[in-house]
């Protein structure tokens, strides 16, 4: 049967089982923005202190870690890029905020597909939409945190041109983390055990990413452990952020190649898993 309707009235194919599925996140930008707004608006709405919590929580965590690891365990940070003696809590804040991009997006994004189950029953959107919306909300908060970090460093008079690398690092990290988060969120959809295991894994990653101690502190005897930890892309990300913001040195190009390679691998895994397992998730709820 041939249809000879004028071009303007030509029907849009809603779905055709013989065509391959295309990935078009841009088409869903409005929906992603709506979900991001919902996440941001609803998050602290019923708390008396409201949005203050977004900064209060990390500030309190940093205070706790600073007391334990600086005052009690005597971890020594390196000297600042401007030659001044290192300050542990400042050194910690830089790594902490960088690592938070990862833990925030993976922990909140990891449950985002499951969490949008009721919505998926009512209206169609691809399964990466809730992950992207959650990531956007976390990145919004992270950009405020990075702003505060830069303010603190400026107060310590520790500023240099290497800061220009920050947007590039944030971009690569975001893509890497969103891809990881999508794969985790999808796995969680099929096997809820993933979501239960996630907090433990994230805690482990926190320690394996050198947020709280410099890798140099690992004794030479534990050479294998040290190599394993250094292979962790998140450790390399955290170190790159510290290098740029705190040490005021450009990251080594080998590091950047390593990070971009991991990012490409993660994006590949995301696209593969979307095509293979991510198309009919609304039927799983």
């Amino acid at each position, binding site marked *: *049967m*041939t*249809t*000879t*309707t004028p071009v303007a*009235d*030509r*029907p*849009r*194919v*809603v*779905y*055709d*089982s*013989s065509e391959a599925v295309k990935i078009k996140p841009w088409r869903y930008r*409005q*929906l992603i*923005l*709506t*979900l991001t*707004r*919902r996440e941001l*608006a*609803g998050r602290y*709405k*019923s708390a008396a202190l409201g949005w203050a919590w977004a900064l209060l929580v990390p500030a309190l965590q940093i205070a706790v870690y600073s007391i334990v690891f600086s005052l009690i365990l005597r971890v020594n940070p390196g000297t600042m890029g401007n030659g001044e003696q290192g300050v542990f809590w400042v050194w910690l804040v830089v790594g902490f905020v960088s690592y938070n991009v990862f833990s925030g997006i993976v922990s909140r994004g990891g449950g985002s597909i499951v969490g949008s189950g009721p*919505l*998926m*029953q*009512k*209206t*169609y959107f691809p399964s990466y939409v809730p992950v992207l919306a959650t990531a956007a909300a976390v990145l919004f908060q992270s950009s405020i945190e990075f702003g505060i970090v830069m303010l603190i460093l400026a107060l310590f008079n520790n500023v240099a041109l290497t800061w220009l690398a920050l947007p590039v690092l944030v971009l690569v990290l975001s893509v890497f983390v969103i891809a990881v988060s999508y794969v985790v969120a999808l796995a969680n*959809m*099929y*096997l809820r055990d993933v979501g239960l295991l996630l907090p433990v894994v994230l805690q482990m990653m926190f320690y394996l990413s050198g947020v709280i101690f410099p890798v140099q502190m690992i004794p030479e005897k534990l050479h294998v452990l040290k190599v394993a930890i250094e292979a962790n892309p998140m450790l390399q990300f955290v170190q790159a952020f510290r290098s740029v913001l705190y040490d005021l040195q450009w990251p080594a190009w080998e590091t950047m190649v390593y990070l971009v390679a991991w990012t490409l691998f993660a994006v590949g895994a995301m696209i593969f898993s979307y095509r293979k397992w991510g*198309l*009919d998730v*609304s*039927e*799983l709820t």
Partner: protein
Amino acid sequence: MSESFALRATGVSKRYRNRLGTGSIKQILTLRRPDLEEAYWAVHDVSFTLPAGESLGLIGHNGAGKSTLLKLLAGIHRPTLGRIESTGRVASLLALGAGFQHELSGRDNISLNGGLLGLSKAQIAEHTEAIIEFSGLGDHIERPMRTYSAGMRMRLGFSVTTAVVPEVLILDEVIGVGDAQFQDKCARHLDGILTGGTTMVIASHSNATIRRLCHQTLWLDQGEPILHGPTAAVMDIYEAPADEQEELIARFRAGGDQAAQVVSLPESRSDSPRARSHQ
């Protein structure tokens, strides 16, 4: 053959199978795929063409595949086989109250829900006051949604969903929302939408509703299309005593190829007695 339509389905089928998520831990560990025999066709080989401004009724017993077909048409689930085409925005009343966030005010939820339904910011801004007016929520609209009763939420949901009339509207027995007074308002509003030339697909267990609202009717049984044609003809057989149905179906099918074809009602809806009887 040239024809224009608002919604067209060609050989649409959906097969569900026992999924990994519902399988045993042993199945998961051994990665044993559930046998194909466990799979079943929830909808099998459904085709129809719906011209703009007409409405299609879906009938059949529970589990006949009506809701599955609606989900496929709304794009919520993907057909296993087949092709669905549309000339405009397909919106479903299945999405009633989708994404309501209980900590936010009713007004904020209008823009959230509207965004989820595919409305632009400008469209939402333009219709917000009319939506509040229609929902009859008054001052409650500024209060957090957690203070709303279930009925109030439904009323707001219905108001948002039907504020901007889509090209194709999909309904699954949601004609009654809220108290009797609001239900009546909904019914009148839907009639308005209907006579305004909106294409609709409605699944219902109410034969009267189908007869009143639909031009064509598709009868599904265990996912298979049994009969498809003008509502009056299909409904007469559907409502006939069970022992006569088989013969009537056979005679209907033998009545020529137009049985499988779309046959529109001759009269236009706005002046049909069915539509007027409700106003």
